[in-house]
């Protein structure tokens, strides 16, 4: 399964610059009711680039951008790329321990932060608002193109590093090159993207789907509507359709089902809705299509290691029979999907194997993890040729119609609200807590649950949870925390998940939350 790519620029910042050249007065960003035009965005990005280049930032550097979503963050991203460098976006609320670990991992020469007073372990920290346009008459303002750094990088150069949950207990940095981000936007824009389109940007900035929502529109001439705060609610969506002309929406599957349950009318006015990250429940898709038969509902699949989407499928009413498994579809441009058996041979249609992905979407590496990289991105032999492919750890099959279908995980990796969670990472963090001797992390009723055997140190469940909040980003912190005398095992010595689920559903003695 392969799809070809188009002919537009393969560098992210050049693709955005081309949009600015074609549609200078079009709206690139909307945030808190104010608009940023493409020409302005481009000019400000070049001004930031000039300042960063003056600080010695160039090809090979990775600059942490520590900020909530806002126009200044977008300007800073493009400014870094114009220098030939890459950025990694850090949530300012992440625990200091994680922030500092990321600064070390990327060997950050400096940091651009919304709060420049934040501790980055002595690394030079500049205010993100260095992204503001310079004073009139200042160098670079009148002739911004003259100030553009002349750094040349190729499409294989790193554009961004996305940190995701890893099994080792350390943050896992996925290095994504320019071509991975541009590959599906170089030809005719995908449905819902390009001039005349506007899309809420609700994915967290540290995630690869942020690039999809934001840069996908900026590289094709659409408008990105930056959600104020962390969460897009159905009420916000209604206002974005009415006031800002939203046409396109991407939601993680669990949010999509919530919107369908609680406020199906909030989708009114949209032409394209993309859903992904978890299995799409057929009854919700069916309800959506009955109400919006003309709206394109796309079911999308893709791990971060093959940037943004790997496959998509336009959901048809006949896909949504009760209990049906909705296909995840066909590859996006410049992307190849191979379903391989245990011996690395291509599975015939209908046979389940591991989903492996090749093509321009692939990450370059896991930062500082050569062995992990070699294992995950090993070459595979296809038709006598050797191609670099990412082993997703997902099982799947190609159905008789040639559509990919998802068949579960090889390991314990799971999704909470659409975000990847490695239980081993959470367990590793919990074991460092003085109140924990042994522990297990699992999912109960769609919530992350930690079961632990208390250690000699002080603290009940609330204290353990509080401790985890100082080590892990919030989505990785279990909402259910239960102390047990021992971890329940099945007769053959495996963790007894049924017994854990029962324990999770039993309310604890109330302890005042310390959050």
């Amino acid at each position, binding site marked *: 399964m392969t799809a070809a790519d188009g002919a537009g620029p393969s560098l992210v910042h050049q693709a955005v610059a081309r949009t600015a050249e074609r549609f200078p007065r079009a709206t690139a960003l909307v945030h808190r009711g104010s608009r940023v035009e493409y020409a302005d965005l481009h000019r400000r990005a070049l001004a930031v680039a000039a300042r960063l280049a003056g600080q010695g930032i160039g090809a090979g550097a990775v600059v942490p951008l520590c900020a909530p979503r806002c126009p200044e963050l977008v300007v800073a991203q493009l400014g870094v790329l114009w220098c030939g460098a890459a950025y990694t976006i850090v949530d300012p609320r992440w625990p200091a321990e994680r922030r500092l670990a990321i600064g070390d991992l990327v060997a950050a020469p400096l940091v651009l932060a919304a709060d420049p007073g934040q501790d980055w372990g002595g690394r030079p920290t500049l205010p993100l608002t260095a992204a503001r346009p310079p004073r009139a008459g200042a160098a670079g303002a009148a002739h911004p193109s003259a100030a553009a750094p002349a750094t040349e990088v190729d499409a294989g150069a790193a554009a961004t590093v996305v940190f995701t949950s890893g099994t080792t207990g350390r943050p896992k940095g996925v290095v994504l090159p320019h071509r991975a981000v541009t590959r599906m936007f170089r030809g005719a824009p995908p449905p819902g993207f390009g001039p005349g389109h506007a899309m809420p940007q609700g994915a967290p900035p540290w995630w690869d789907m942020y690039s999809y929502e934001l840069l996908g529109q900026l590289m094709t001439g659409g408008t990105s509507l930056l959600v104020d705060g962390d969460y897009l609610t159905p*009420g916000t969506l209604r206002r974005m359709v009415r006031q800002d002309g939203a046409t396109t929406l991407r939601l993680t599957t669990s949010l999509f089902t919530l919107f369908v349950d609680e406020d199906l009318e909030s989708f009114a006015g949209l032409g394209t809705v993309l859903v992904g990250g978890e299995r799409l429940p057929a009854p919700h898709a069916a309800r959506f299509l009955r109400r919006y038969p003309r709206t394109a509902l796309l079911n999308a699949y893709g791990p971060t290691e093959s940037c943004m989407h790997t496959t998509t499928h336009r959901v048809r009413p006949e896909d949504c029979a009760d209990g049906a498994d909705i296909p995840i579809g066909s590859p996006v441009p410049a992307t190849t999907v191979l379903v391989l058996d245990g011996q690395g041979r291509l599975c015939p249609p209908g046979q389940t194997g591991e989903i492996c992905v090749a093509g321009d979407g692939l990450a370059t590496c896991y930062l500082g993890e050569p062995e992990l990289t070699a294992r995950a991105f090993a070459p595979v032999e296809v038709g006598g040729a050797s191609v670099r492919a990412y082993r997703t750890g997902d099982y799947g099959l190609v159905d008789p119609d040639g559509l990919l279908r998802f068949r579960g995980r090889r390991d314990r990796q799971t999704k909470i609200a659409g975000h990847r969670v490695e239980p081993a990472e959470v367990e590793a963090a919990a074991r460092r807590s003085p109140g924990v001797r042994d522990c297990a992390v699992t999912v109960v009723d769609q919530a992350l649950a930690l079961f632990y055997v208390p250690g000699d140190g002080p603290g009940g469940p609330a204290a353990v949870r509080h401790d985890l909040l100082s080590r892990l980003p919030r989505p990785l912190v279990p909402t259910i925390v239960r102390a047990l005398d021992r971890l329940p095992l099945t007769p053959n010595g495996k963790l007894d998940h049924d017994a854990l689920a029962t324990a999770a559903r039993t309310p604890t003695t*109330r302890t005042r939350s310390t959050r």
Partner: protein
Amino acid sequence: MTRSTAEVVADIVADVLGIEEIDPADSFYDHDGTSLQALRICARIERATGVALTPVDLLDNDVLGDFVALVSARSAGDGG
């Protein structure tokens, strides 16, 4: 008989958390509340009362009595 905003909000919170009745002194986190449940509560309250909320309003005012009071105050502020 029209129910007060506080009653409507208390019922929605209890329903989403799967409990009979809320104890105003309880924290949202005492009930293992997730951010998705917070979003569901906010979406439902906005539809029922017209008060626009985001999950942060609940996650930052996690004592349920405080949250009910916050929504009631906003509702009164909007003239309804």
